[in-house]
């Protein structure tokens, strides 16, 4: 039983990691209907920025964290301006390819600038553990869970309760109509990219003690976070986190109870099964086109 709970908790922690990255996917999709395949790489870049500020320049952890978030928000806006804005309005396929290209580019540039070694950042959470009875929880994992819950709640409030959030939802439904209603669509899209890059950076920095930072971390985790977002139904913020937690728990359970090899495949098998039964994900909207 204890094994089960321990696996469950570590699965939830892992799942929150996926959920955090998936949040970034969902944000961009929710506001612009663009699927950003470079999300994982934005996370990786955020981690490297934080490493530069904290590990190389010796800044305080929190100042470095804030600096990395701010820098990445600017970078997100830049990426949107250069790569995404010219092709808004074209078929989704073009935009997917463009972000895949951006991902390639970021990965190799990061490899050239920071090298291909693993880096780690010393964080206030790296060391301690929390004991509840005989259950052992590492602080770094708890920090990820807490950050995911807080970010998810903040973003949900932002999207559903603020004017800017409503403007974002409006421009995702119909950019032209939103523009006619006086919403500055271009600025809205650029803010969304800034937010999603900032969320990605939070994920990257919180992950640094767990997965380390290297130039391929974004690809590896991004490919896990992507099913999480799909499982939750692309476009639902709580869905992303639930999907992430599901994938994380399935992965850690499969790794513990099933034969070797199932761990990596199990999330995808579950994903295919869910898509078969509910093609729009667990929390997705089902809308039919009217002709």
């Amino acid at each position, binding site marked *: 039983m204890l094994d089960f709970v321990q696996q469950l908790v570590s699965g939830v922690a892992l799942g929150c990691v996926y959920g955090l990255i998936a949040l970034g996917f969902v944000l961009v999709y929710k506001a612009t*209907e663009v*699927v950003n395949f470079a999300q994982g790489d934005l996370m990786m870049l955020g981690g490297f920025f934080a490493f530069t500020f904290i590990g190389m320049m010796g800044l305080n952890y929190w100042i470095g964290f804030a600096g990395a978030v701010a820098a990445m928000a600017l970078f997100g806006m830049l990426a949107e301006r250069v*790569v995404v804005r*010219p*092709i*808004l*309005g*074209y078929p*989704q*396929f*073009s*935009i*997917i*390819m*463009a972000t*895949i*290209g*951006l*991902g*390639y*580019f*970021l*990965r*190799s*540039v990061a*490899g*050239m600038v920071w090298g*291909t070694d693993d880096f780690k950042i010393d964080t206030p959470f790296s060391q301690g553990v929390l004991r509840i009875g005989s259950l052992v929880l590492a602080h770094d994992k708890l920090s990820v869970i807490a950050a995911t819950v807080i970010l998810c709640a903040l973003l949900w409030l932002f999207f559903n309760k603020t004017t800017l959030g409503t403007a974002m939802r409006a421009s*995702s*439904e*119909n*950019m*032209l*109509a939103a*523009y006619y209603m006086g919403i500055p669509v271009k600025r809205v899209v650029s803010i969304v990219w800034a937010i999603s890059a900032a969320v990605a950076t939070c994920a990257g920095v919180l992950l640094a003690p767990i997965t380390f930072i290297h*130039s391929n971390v974004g690809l590896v985790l991004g*490919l896990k976070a*992507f*099913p999480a977002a*799909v499982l939750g139904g*692309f*476009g639902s913020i709580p869905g992303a986190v639930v999907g992430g937690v599901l994938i994380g728990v399935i992965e850690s359970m499969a790794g513990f109870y099933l034969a070797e*090899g199932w761990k*990596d*495949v199990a999330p*995808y*098998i579950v*994903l*295919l099964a869910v*898509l*078969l039964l509910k*093609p*729009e*994900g667990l929390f997705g*909207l089902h*809308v*039919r*086109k009217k*002709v």
Partner: protein
Amino acid sequence: MRFLFKTDYEDDIRLFPHSGYVVSYGLLLAVLLIAPYVLSSYLMSQLVFVCIYATVGVALLILTGFTGQASLGHAAFLAIGAYTAAYLQKYNVPFPVYFLAAGALTGLIGALVGFPALRLQGIYLVIATISFAFIVEEILARWESVTNGNEGMRVKAMSLLGVTVSRDSPTFYFLCLAVLVLTIVGTLNLLRSPTGRAFVAIRDSETAARSMGINVALYKVKSFAISAAITGFAGVLFAHKLSFISPEMFTLQLSIEFIIVILIGGTFSLHGAVLGAIFIVMIDPFLTYLKDDMPGIIAGLAATFGAGAQSAGNVQSKVAAFASLNGLKGAIYGIIIVLFVLFEPLGLYGRWLKIKLFFQLFPLYKRATFKRQKIYVKSERNR
């Protein structure tokens, strides 16, 4: 400029609309047939890869370009074809039999993948095909009794009609070329048949296609099966060319490369698959060439423009250091993809058409002819 007057449906669906086509494609075929006796063995080997990639490109075009179903799982189909060949070859099955068997098995699996894909749209379909590819990759790595796991499998040289055909011989090149040409001709025929018309109708509007009485599910499954089968054939050739296969050759990276083939070539015409394959396969030797020769050339230029020998040498070593940074290839790949999506969404074949039209209409060419329409009312979420 030539005007074609079509008076009959037969005129409209002709494979060669006018005699110019026969001449130019005949010339191309002649050049390709004498190529092995002229080119170096390295270039020949690249040419074989062009044929294989182009075959996969055509397969992907049927599915993505003409039926509108995106797939990031074609590396898995290629792997199934390759492994079927390698496995059957161990039991001394003759080449023609396992060639066909690989195609049939891959086609069957493609149809099986097509069924779940029926209900999926856009991004969900992409992720479903990625999942499928991951699962296949893992099976190949774990099913050791058949696939030999991560150790990989050796593929012996094929024997065709009792003659051993090595992977570097002209005969192997001719075989790959024949497969490519047959695939292209077959696909052209498919596309002018009712099945092909149904594919295009589904791509343009599923709802409209259904209203016209097209069985959307059936044709989607057919499209998946045909595309997978062709990829399976290419997989057999791929296995023979590499002579060694292991699961880590068939990753998502390869699937993305195949998508890049049709994206760079152009997704609206079969020419795109071939042009894209040439681009993707030839970029490697080109980058190597740049890496070796570019520093000297730039230093030479610097010297011409008045730099002293000292600073020219400096420039040369700087450029050489930059060119040998590892990961540069990935960055160039990324930039190429982004630039194509941004500036040449119709791909290389689109560029060729534009150049051709420019000269045909000489002073009257206008850019707006090829301008794409932007749609700001997103339909992908609710269709």
